[in-house]
């Protein structure tokens, strides 16, 4: 029996990482559904893709890069640049389709330039794409320091269109529940996945990609000796990844309907993690594009589980993803050693075969235990963030939250009170929006008045409360030391008798996406101060 299992395992060992990932997604989601009944709603499942369609798009491109044994750190920069550039062009009144086309071309050009450096100049992929990332992020701030809202009909249309799922629609209607839907970008990302699978497994190009990667660059040499066009393939792979980054950037810009140079910080790590968890070897040459889909889903399910648990803080996502990567890399190296002709030995024996290995195991276990003891010892029992007053951050003395003033405004009937401090000009601005549509803004030096449509205020409030879940527990205050150009936001919303203040600082990874969307829909109705 064990022999047969062993034989089976070694025959299909290439599929082990993929199967494990798929099982993990299934198990994690099932556990979630048992614990939290809200997760049984099919819409939650479809939201997994909807909230991560740009991650999937980017991860597909990254899979090809990693299959050639390279890496691309520039994705986050290119994504941010795409959001800013498209927002700026749309603000200037360009045709949205031309903007989308231009963004894709821009991504491809950046990718092609980096690819040429890597292929022809023999610059390490790591360094070349790092420079690309810095370049792209820097260019964002040449275009605009502040977030630019996107107010374009076609972009909104693409973002808001709901595509009903054919089979489930009838089922939902027969049960008189709202039918689950998905968005255009989910469909696009799945189309891209299909094309990518076709290219990777059924075209000569895909074979070349697989041939280049693996064995620490030694396969590249053999591919070259076989007469494969290694350099061209590499440039094409990075160009394709640039295209994917551009597309992901457009998806993100549409999703949050704004553009800012600090979006998607640390995004490249998520992308790389989802490719690795999806079973692609980081040395290249082995893995499946299809697996990346599961890698993305693992990350999406992790996020949603932590969200549903509520009491766990956002940083647990990072720790869980790190641990998962460790596990999957462990599986991969285990498969790699099995291939190395040590198939008879059970893996635990191979692990303990030599004194060094035993030593390593003891060391690593010891290190883990010490770290976890330290963590448990120091992590206090109370979860939840402190109410922290700001202090100076190098460039600017960030003003503290004017709590009493905001409380007064709310008492006087304001529905939105928004206090923003920091930034390049070190502002300290207080905005108040009233239900009759009047907007009052104070910056210490200037006082401004504005008037908007009262219906629009109601619409914004409804969106914040219902779509973004402002009054639910998934909205909580976050804080980190603001960078020189970052703003500290204090936003108080009063709606239907509920009142809640949430604090956040941009420029980090801790702000919830919903907070960003909320700011981006409030920002357009506020009057602008002249510097």
């Amino acid at each position: 029996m064990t022999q047969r299992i062993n034989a089976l395992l070694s025959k299909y060992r290439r599929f082990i990482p993929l199967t494990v990932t798929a099982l993990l997604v299934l198990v994690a989601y099932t556990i979630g559904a048992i614990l939290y009944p809200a997760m049984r709603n099919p819409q939650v499942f479809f939201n997994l893709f909807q909230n991560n369609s740009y991650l999937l798009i980017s991860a597909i491109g990254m899979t090809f890069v990693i299959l050639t044994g390279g890496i691309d750190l520039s994705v986050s920069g290119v994504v941010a640049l795409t959001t800013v550039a498209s927002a700026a062009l749309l603000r200037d009144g360009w045709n949205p389709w031309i903007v989308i086309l231009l963004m894709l071309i821009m991504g491809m050009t950046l990718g092609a330039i980096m690819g040429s450096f890597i292929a022809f100049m023999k610059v390490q992929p790591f360094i070349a794409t790092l420079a690309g990332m810095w370049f792209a992020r820097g260019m964002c701030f040449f275009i605009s320091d502040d977030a630019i809202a996107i107010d374009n009909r076609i972009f909104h249309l693409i973002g808001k269109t709901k595509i009903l799922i054919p089979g489930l629609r009838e089922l939902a209607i027969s049960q008189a529940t709202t039918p689950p839907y998905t968005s255009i970008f989910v469909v696009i990302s799945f189309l891209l996945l299909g094309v990518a699978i076709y290219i990777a497994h059924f075209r000569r190009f895909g074979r070349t990609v697989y041939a280049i990667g693996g064995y620490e660059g030694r396969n590249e040499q053999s591919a070259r000796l076989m007469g494969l066009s290694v350099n061209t393939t590499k440039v094409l792979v990075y160009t394709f990844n640039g295209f994917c980054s551009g597309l992901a950037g457009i998806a993100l810009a549409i999703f949050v309907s704004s553009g800012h140079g600090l979006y998607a910080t640390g995004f490249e790590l998520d992308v790389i993690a989802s490719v690795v968890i999806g079973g692609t070897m980081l040395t290249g040459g082995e893995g499946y594009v299809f697996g990346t889909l599961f890698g993305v889903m693992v990350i999406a399910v992790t996020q949603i589980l932590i969200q549903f648990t509520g009491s766990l803080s956002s940083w647990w996502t990072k720790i869980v993803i790190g641990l998962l990567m460790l596990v999957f890399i462990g599986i991969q190296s285990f498969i790699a050693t099995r291939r190395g002709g040590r198939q008879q030995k059970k893996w635990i024996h191979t692990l303990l075969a030599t004194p060094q290995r035993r030593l390593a195991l003891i060391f690593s276990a010891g290190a883990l235990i010490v770290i976890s003891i330290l963590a448990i010892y120091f992590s206090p029992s109370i979860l939840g963030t402190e109410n922290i007053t700001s202090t100076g951050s190098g460039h600017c003395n960030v003003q503290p939250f004017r709590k009493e003033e905001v409380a007064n405004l709310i008492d006087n009937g304001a529905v939105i009170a928004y206090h923003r401090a920091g930034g390049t000009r070190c502002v300290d601005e207080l905005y108040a929006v009233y239900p009759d549509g009047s907007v009052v803004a104070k910056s210490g030096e200037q006082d401004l008045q504005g008037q908007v449509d009262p219906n629009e205020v109601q619409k914004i409030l409804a969106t914040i409360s219902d779509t973004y879940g402002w009054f639910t527990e998934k909205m909580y205050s976050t804080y980190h030391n603001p960078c020189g150009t970052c703003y500290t936001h204090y936003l108080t919303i009063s709606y239907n008798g509920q009142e809640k203040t949430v604090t956040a600082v941009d420029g980090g990874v801790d702000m919830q996406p919903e907070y960003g969307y909320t700011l981006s829909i409030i920002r357009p109705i506020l009057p602008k101060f002249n510097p």
Partner: protein
Amino acid sequence: MKKNRTSFTWRKVTESRLFFPLLALVIILLADLILIPGFFKFQIRGDNLYGSLIDIFRNGSTVALLAIGMTLVIATGGIDLSVGAVMAIAASVAALLMNPYVLGKELSPQLQALIRDPNFTWQPLWVVLLITLLVAILCGLWNGILVAYVRIQPMVATLILMIAGRGIAQLITNGVRIQIFYEPYAFIGQGWIILPFCLYLVAIIYALTWLFTRKTAVGMFIESVGINARSSFFSGISERKIKLLVYTFCGFCAGIAGLVASANIKTSDANNIGWSLELDAILAVVIGGTSMAGGRFSLLASIIGAMVMQAVTTSMYAIGVPAFALLAIKGVFVILVVMLYSKQVRGLFQKLAVDRKET
């Protein structure tokens, strides 16, 4: 005959590892001298020296510390992406050991007054430093075990800690940004004894590392592992132990850098301390001329590389380039430097030199 000899010495100078980084530093400083009036002015306040030049060295000290550890790692043909995260972990541990009361939700007024006292600390300074560095060393050891014994690619192995590390740092402080009020600790980052204290720290670490690598055989072992791990193994060098040592040492350096960074801003900021500094450190090493493929290394060249990066940053700020736009310039700068070192360009230069000789 005489001409020959001068050209020989010139060649010796240009082929020195320090030549290119020093040249870059000199060019940048010369540009500053011309473009920014008063760049080289020194002020003496009390007994201490102040000035833009000293600022460059002071702000570059964290990257220089990281670069010392990173040089050894890169010399073995590896890479350590986790140093930034380890810095954040170290800063969090240190802040917590001095000021654990912040994590309690309600603070009594007495306690609040107490923790703001600049002479108050929970643990004595030596315990804080010891435990912080111990934790940093453990992080390095973890990387080393993954790379040397579990045989995971260095980049992947350290990527794990890079992703999880910031989460761990936030876990330690429970997501709170702990302020550090204890004055003796702040001295590490902000103190001056004629020159900034952190410069002495860099000098001490450099001197110790130099003695350890150049006055014992360890440096040679590291280089040989970087050039060819397998043949060093066959010639009796315990390649795994060397790798373990190098990554552990890199963790230690990151720990010290974390202490300096957190003492400098007087907070533990798990999100921002050391953010993208691993990249700066790697670039400092690359500018210093150590090949990413491993092999020969020069610690001093890496430190000069760190100073070159900081000089670029400081002079751009002085000219008035905004902080984020600087990234774009840095990106172009990196590509230029890497191209300058690439075989293709060097080959071109050599070809040109040969052609000139022939004609």
